[in-house]
């Protein structure tokens, strides 16, 4: 069963009296444990597509199933619960919580979203810290670490709840080339280790190369699907 299945997926934004289509009838499926990239120029609909898969934005038309669940008409609360259970997020700007340490940022979804018991939580956070190579930075605050390290923490935070799917919107856009490569390598390693599906968007051709499946988007339409 595919982890993501979209049929005639559409998203239209209403700007005043004008309807602006962002995604126009896209069809695709993504299998579990894939390493997928949505590629395209700005305004091609990459982020909108990721937002719909991540249950942050409901589709205007079409159907969308994520992890076997029809997510087209989830309520606000149910969307939050679904995201907390099934999906991890990695953001372009890292979006770590500044008042929490590295350890606490990774721990945050286990406390505030999934309510894990303390002992199990500690074990899981330590495992993630080790996986992303941040054990020695655990007590530092986001302001005390580099951009690459922040994104490592973000990767760990996205994976800590054992999601079936991780969505990363331009995860390397704010990183230098070397760091970006290391983050992509790390994400791939995590995919191998935890069998989690990674879907990321990018317009960086060198980052695109590392994806196993590449969906090419333009003007909200899927132009091609390429398997590397």
């Amino acid at each position: 069963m595919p982890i993501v299945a979209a049929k005639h997926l559409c998203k239209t934004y209403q700007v005043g009296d004008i309807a602006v289509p962002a995604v126009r009838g896209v069809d695709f499926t993504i299998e579990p444990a894939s390493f997928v990239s949505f590629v395209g120029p700005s305004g091609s609909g990459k982020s909108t597509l990721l937002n719909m898969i991540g249950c942050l934005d409901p589709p205007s038309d079409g159907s969308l199933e994520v992890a076997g669940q029809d997510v087209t008409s989830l309520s606000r609360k149910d969307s939050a619960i679904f995201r907390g259970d099934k999906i991890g997020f990695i953001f372009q700007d890292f979006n770590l919580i500044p008042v929490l340490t590295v350890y606490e940022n990774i721990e945050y979804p286990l406390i505030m979203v999934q309510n894990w018991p303390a002992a199990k939580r500690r074990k899981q956070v330590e495992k993630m810290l080790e996986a992303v190579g941040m054990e020695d930075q655990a007590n530092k605050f986001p302001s005390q670490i580099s951009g690459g390290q922040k994104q490592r923490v973000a990767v760990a935070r996205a994976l800590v709840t054992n999601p079936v799917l991780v969505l990363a919107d331009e995860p390397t856009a704010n990183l230098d080339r070397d760091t970006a490569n290391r983050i992509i390598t790390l994400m791939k390693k995590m995919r191998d280790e935890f069998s989690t599906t990674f879907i990321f968007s990018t317009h960086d051709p060198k980052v695109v190369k590392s994806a196993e499946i590449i969906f090419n988007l333009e003007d909200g339409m899927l132009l091609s699907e390429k398997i590397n």
Partner: protein
Amino acid sequence: MFNILKIAIRNLRRYKRRTFLTSILITLGVVSVLLFVSVAGSFKAMMIGQITDSMMGHLQIHRKGYMASMDSLPLNRNLRGKQISLVKNILEENDQIEAYSMRLKLGAMFSNFSETTNIRLTAVNPEQELRTAPMLQDRLLKGDKKGLLNKGEILVPELIARGMNIKIGDTVVLVATNKDGSVNGQSFVVRGILEGISGPGGRDGYIHLADARSLLRIQGKEISEVAIRLKDMDALETVFSSLKQRLAVFKTKKGKPVYEIHTWAKLSPFAKIASMIDLMTLFIKVMLVAIVLISIMNVMIMSVYERINEIGTIAAIGTRPGKIMALFLTEGLLLGIFGTLIGVILSLVAVAAMNVSGISFDFGRQKGLLLSPTIGTGDIFLVVIIVIAIAVLGSLQPAWKAARMDPITALRHV
């Protein structure tokens, strides 16, 4: 919940200056209210104490209709024989009553053999009176305070003494008309000069009850009023209701009540000043509510506005709206608790300092009254509850806004 608390504390620490300034504002509000409540309360309690303990007692019982014509000191509306015994029995049975004093009030001509004037007199049993109005002795400006007075002695009000140049030991004559219209005179020795205070009876002279009876040629027992002192002033309303109920059963042959009972507040004009103090206290509390509401709302709105991106992040990773709301409400709650705690501590210190320094004031003709402010636990509890409740209320709208925020819009916010 502990984790929400931990994150809320860290968020407040993140914006140290804003947290500090908001807390200071709340603290100032709490200090203002508690100090006003304690000082005004102390002033009120002192003045009520002056009035009740040196003159009126806490409650007074009269024959029905006496109060309406009290200014003319009517002798035909006195309580007599059995009526007095019934009241005595009821008062003796009530264990919340500390003492009571049977008084006879009369008007007379006061003469020092060269000048004559009108005088209002309260005739008392000195022992009863001192137990009922223990501060009456303190109003004696001149003369021996011990035992208040004996038969044949008179306490002359200050104004008359000064106007007629009356001195301790002088002999004076009182001439009074009894209820039958016959006039009688009797000489008295001036035992003391009594300070006048505001309120009914505050400028009366005092004579012994036995002397009043002989002056008015009263046969048997007859009194104008019974002044009552309670063990605990806080039980005033309870005792008042209970006595009123007990006295209400006694009716005249025409079916009308025999007695009337009043609290000090009904008898003294100072009750209106006391009500004004209560009103001002209420007004100050409303001001506190406004201060807390505005400051907390302001800081929480700013807090939400500055953390829109962060709210988007925690919402995106699956934090439920309820938890986001709880986080911001907790921040508001903590601000309220922190400001209130400091405010209460500062107020207690300020009150202690005022008591140590001994602040005195003048009230009317009474000089050098020493203020002894106290803060009751009830007042502290009330202020704490008000501030914390308002802090949460003030955070409600910003917290609601944060919880309802669209994650995508929030994540795009720069």
